[in-house]
């Protein structure tokens, strides 16, 4: 908020999580204390995995509500304003995990404005935790400041932790945490004095991330199925499954553009990742620039000796020529397929390729579509490809489709000092498969409109979620079956599930969030349709996009296909342009970062620290 002629009366973040589906309402009221009208800004950070579902402004008792419209139509409707850039950028990139929603509105003298923003998301289980992230930055002391989260998990809550980057020892006891068997309540509402940076100053301590992480109890191998109002959701993350050994080929880009930090970080990350391999894993390393170099001709067992040698080898990674992704991936895949055929790797094991690259193919086959087709055809759905795109210039879209066509996913690795941790963290997520070829089956005659129910892998610490609509509204129980391939034997469980009696589970709470299962189903369906539209034929793509658009409009989600349009009030006969909020795609986020890159510089330090492992070396030679 601009200066002290504007007083922030309240900031409230109210988050309700019902079975992983988070519904967050952020409300802020401000007063224009000046004698003239002035612009008041409202800026909110929300997780990029969230969809905005509602936005409103209340000014002098009049409420202006945002309306979700088809993006293209909204664009046309407000073409003039959009083309002059007046409305652009309501949602911007904000760091790696968040995006920023910001609006401003002209407020008359001595008037109040209340902004309300609502967003929803399905929390994803990563490394055994769900995380609710709230970024707060009120910029001045706030009369009434409050973050409240109520977590309802009928499955039972195993652990809850709340912390914030700005919490000092004095403020720590201010976080109120009450956990019962199936409900957790977390609240943080510091007084004006507790918000102060120092006793006599107006600066606020409240500036940073407030993070709640929790996990649920997982008692049954079938998972947890909830039926509510004609929709069901199935959470599958069975306990106590042994890990399946992996056969992993690391395909590492050593092209010239990886030089400097990226290469250095790659070497460190490879050391860390290789050290994390389990003895029963098999692995291979394929380095590529315009030429392909395999460390060994086959995958080898991850014995300590082999890992040590691989670390030595990875330590010699040096950037050089062009980028032949096509040949490198095909070479890695061939190695995997041959080793499997020759039974050099265990029969019950999970095959994966981890590609680390920073750029577009510049050598060999350079047409992205053909590379995607080549690998998918050679792979035939047998091997999972995870692509790690390094830096701001990587073509994320290309890697994402390439991975999706091969059962995997792409992840951006941000070029920063923690890149090694990002790489290692990703590997941790995927390095412990518990099951492969997992199918979640429901009676055909009882359910329809299912979200994806086949998964190549289930990883330790993650969770599979399937939702669907009951065809028979009166149905309150059904037979569920899950099959997959485990470490030593096939995994197969069956069970009968029935609708929950919410009144019994939460007798003291009113019916807060009745349609969450339906909204969760819609959220998942839209996400999957958007993903699908990347990998299918033109006809199928059009169908998937149309369906995703229809559902985004029906459920009022701001997705990459829709926009939220808010018509601002007229103040003193001044007509403002409309406000249009769009959902950013990963490509748009990346483009924004490219336009405003973080400052990169490389510099050497003065020398006294010459006790480093590698001594300096000065030499002269000839080619």
């Amino acid at each position, binding site marked *: 908020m601009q200066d002290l002629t504007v007083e922030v009366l309240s900031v409230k973040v109210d988050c309700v999580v019902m079975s992983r589906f988070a519904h967050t309402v952020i409300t802020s009221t401000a007063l224009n204390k000046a004698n003239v009208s002035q612009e008041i800004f409202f800026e909110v950070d929300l997780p990029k995995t969230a969809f905005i579902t509602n936005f409103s402004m209340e000014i002098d008792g009049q409420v202006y509500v945002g309306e979700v419209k088809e993006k293209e139509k909204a664009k046309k409707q407000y073409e003039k304003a959009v083309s002059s850039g007046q409305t652009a950028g309501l949602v911007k990139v904000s760091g790696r995990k968040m995006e920023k929603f910001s609006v401003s509105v002209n407020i008359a003298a001595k008037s109040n404005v209340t902004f309300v923003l609502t967003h929803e998301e399905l929390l994803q289980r990563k490394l055994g935790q769900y995380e609710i992230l709230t970024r707060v930055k009120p910029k001045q002391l706030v009369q009434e400041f409050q973050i409240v989260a109520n977590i309802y998990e009928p499955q039972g809550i195993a652990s809850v932790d709340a912390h914030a980057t700005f919490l000092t020892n004095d403020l720590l006891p201010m976080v109120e945490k009450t956990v019962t068997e199936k409900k957790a309540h977390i609240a943080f509402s510091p007084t004006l004095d507790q918000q102060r940076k120092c006793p006599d100053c107006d600066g606020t301590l409240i500036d940073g991330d407030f993070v709640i992480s929790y996990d649920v109890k997982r008692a049954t191998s079938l998972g947890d199925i909830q039926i509510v109002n004609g929709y069901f959701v199935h959470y599958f993350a069975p306990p106590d499954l042994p890990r399946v050994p992996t056969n992993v080929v690391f395909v590492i880009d050593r092209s*010239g553009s990886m030089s400097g930090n990226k290469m250095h970080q790659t070497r460190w990350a490879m050391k860390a990742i290789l050290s994390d391999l389990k003895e029963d894993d098999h692995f291979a390393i394929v380095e590529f620039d315009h030429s392909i170099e395999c460390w060994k001709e086959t995958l080898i067992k991850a014995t300590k000796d082999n890992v040590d040698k691989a670390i030595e080898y990875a330590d010699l990674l040096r950037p050089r020529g062009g980028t032949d992704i096509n040949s490198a991936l095909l070479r890695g895949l061939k190695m995997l397929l041959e080793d499997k055929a020759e039974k050099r790797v265990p029969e019950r094991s999970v095959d994966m390729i981890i590609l680390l690259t920073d750029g577009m193919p510049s050598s060999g086959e350079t047409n992205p579509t053909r590379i995607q087709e080549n690998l998918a055809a050679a792979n035939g759905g047998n091997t999972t490809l995870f692509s790690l795109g390094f830096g701001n210039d990587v073509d994320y879209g290309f890697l994402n489709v390439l991975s999706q066509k091969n059962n995997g996913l792409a992840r951006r690795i941000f070029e920063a000092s923690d890149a090694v941790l990002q790489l290692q963290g990703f590997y941790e997520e995927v390095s412990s498969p518990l099951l492969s070829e997992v199918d979640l089956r429901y009676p055909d005659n009882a359910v329809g409109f299912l979200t994806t129910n086949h998964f190549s892998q289930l990883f330790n610490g993650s969770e599979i979620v399937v939702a669907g609509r009951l065809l028979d509204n009166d149905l309150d129980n059904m037979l569920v079956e899950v099959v997959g391939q485990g470490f030593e034997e096939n995994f197969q469980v069956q069970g009968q599930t029935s609708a929950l009696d919410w009144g019994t589970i939460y007798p003291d709470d009113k019916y807060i969030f009745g349609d969450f299962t339906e909204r969760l189903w819609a959220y998942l369906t839209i996400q999957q349709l958007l993903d699908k539209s990347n990998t299918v034929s033109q006809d199928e793509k059009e169908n998937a996009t149309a369906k995703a658009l229809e559902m985004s409009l029906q459920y009022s989600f701001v997705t990459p296909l829709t926009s939220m349009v808010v018509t601002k009030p007229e103040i003193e006969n001044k007509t403002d342009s409309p406000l249009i909020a769009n959902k950013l795609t990963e490509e748009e986020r990346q483009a924004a970062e490219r336009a405003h890159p973080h400052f990169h510089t490389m510099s*050497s*330090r003065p*020398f006294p620290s010459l006790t480093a492992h590698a001594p300096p*070396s000065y030499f002269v030679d000839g*080619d």
Partner: protein
Amino acid sequence: PHFILELPDSDDALCFNINDKPGTIFNLVKDTKSGILVNGQTIGDKQIPPDGKIYTYFWRFGIIHRNLGVRMEVSTKGISVIQDGNRIRLQWSNTTSLKGDNMDILVTKDRSLTVTLKDSVKFVILLHKVWEKHPYHRDYLGFYTLDTHLLSPSVHGMLGQFYHGLEYEVTNLRPGEVPEKPDATMYVKGHELNVTRGWQRDFRRDVKNGENVPCWFIHNNGTGLIDGDISDYIVSGLF
């Protein structure tokens, strides 16, 4: 010849080429305090290759350690060591090891000479043997300093000036002429230089193929990186 300065503190390397008339003798290391001097003489290809460029290489080094009374001449033909008036000749064709009070020498057949001079410096000279009937190329040598921390702060020379570190900053990374070789701006020794990301080869582990060392290439005979210009390093004799 190509010069490489590997700087592990910044996990990076700088490189530059020196090109001059074949036969020129350059001073590489000069430490008057510890009495160490290393000079090297270049040689050109047998004839001018089709691209018209004259490539030069070091083929002969003269090394003096005044305080230890040691004088060595190392060429592609052989190695000669004079200590306290005694001359020893060593052949590249034999693996030989000599251990003295002040100096250790190890010749690895047709490959390298490692010299450790007590309390001062350790270096390796690599022999690059070229097919005798090669139309253009001849045998040449590489000079690698391994341990220099005992040299005095006043050590200088084409390589010696960097022995006690270098402060530089690289910024403004931008596309270069070749996609794999971006350009950047380097601030070093009070100069602002246009540098190019490239790589040069370190032959210590693999004398035949070498290993690529990515480095910031300083153009124009290392101008701006080296003190003065290359003429300041030209000397009249090997010793």
